């Protein structure tokens, strides 16, 4: 195995090693992503069965702090009905953070370093925008937003929804892949243990990218629910 092959293989650019079940190929990122989903779901179920109101355990306090931080961030950013969006955005945050951090375990790659995984996550956000928008405003008001302020703005609205979905996917993918390539190249040039400082940077990057992905999803969904907020505001003004 040549040096270049090593770096590219470490970054998963040579095509990830696949598992074959009959004629059906399963990529490595699909396996790690599914394993992470199962682990998170079972951890959530286990945690839920052990929550206590009186003298909570240490881990419960830590979890409550994390949930509270997520909750307050969502409540600060969305004018109306934050409890509807909280589950989706909270899940995105926790899932992407852990998926990014998996890359730090030797021998494993971040599932988010695969464009298919980030594409799937971005597609969820793409469909969540009309879902929450219609839920909040109803069909007519939501569709009317596409033709505001002028009817010929419609193609631009559609274009912006499509490109921002692409951006969401490519940003996460590019950041995680770029970091892995950089660490691989550094390992080749400088040798063993030198990239440890960069692994710390990788850690910060993982946190930041997870935060940004969830935050952008939040902003996009809030944009889709805009008319509701405007109406509430007007109502508040007239009753005042």
């Amino acid at each position, binding site marked *: 195995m040549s040096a270049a092959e090593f770096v590219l293989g470490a970054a998963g*650019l040579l095509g990830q090693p696949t598992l074959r079940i009959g004629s059906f190929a399963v990529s490595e990122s699909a396996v790690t992503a599914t394993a992470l989903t199962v682990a998170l779901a079972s951890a959530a179920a286990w945690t839920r069965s052990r929550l206590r109101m009186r003298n909570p355990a240490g881990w419960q306090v830590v979890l409550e702090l994390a949930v509270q931080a997520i909750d307050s961030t969502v409540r600060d950013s969305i004018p109306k009905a934050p409890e509807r969006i909280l589950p989706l955005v909270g899940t995105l945050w926790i899932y992407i953070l852990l998926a990014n951090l998996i890359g730090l375990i030797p021998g494993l790659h971040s599932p988010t370093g695969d464009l298919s995984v980030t594409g799937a996550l971005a597609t969820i956000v793409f469909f969540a925008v009309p879902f929450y928008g219609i839920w909040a405003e109803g069909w007519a008001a939501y569709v009317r937003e596409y033709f505001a302020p002028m009817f010929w703005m419609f193609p631009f609205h559609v274009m912006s929804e499509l490109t921002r979905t692409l951006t969401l996917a490519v*940003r996460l993918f590019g950041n995680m892949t770029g970091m892995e390539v950089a660490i691989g190249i550094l390992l080749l040039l400088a040798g063993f243990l030198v990239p440890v400082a960069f692994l710390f940077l990788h850690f910060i990057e993982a946190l930041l990218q997870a*935060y940004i992905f969830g935050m*952008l999803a939040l*902003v996009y969904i809030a944009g889709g629910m805009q008319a509701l907020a405007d109406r509430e505001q007007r109502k508040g003004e007239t009753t005042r």
Partner: protein
Amino acid sequence: MNELSFFTTLVTAFAVLAMGLGVLGPGIGMGMAVAKALEALARQPEAEKSIMRWLLIGLAMIESLAIYVLVIVLIVLFRSPMLDYLLHK
């Protein structure tokens, strides 16, 4: 110099050039964004939370431009359709 090695040299040179030039614009943009955010922070330290939030979102938007360049460069270097054609013709 045969066709393949000429192509590889050209692609490598332009990939490096593209990365350098492509990072230039986002770098300037991010610098301006951070400078303005710090000014706002100095003027209104109590608004730190929301300033930081919008700064991070804005930086992510600007950063995605540089990430586009990185992705294009990676495609050109490793998954180039042109290279495939030269190898398998």
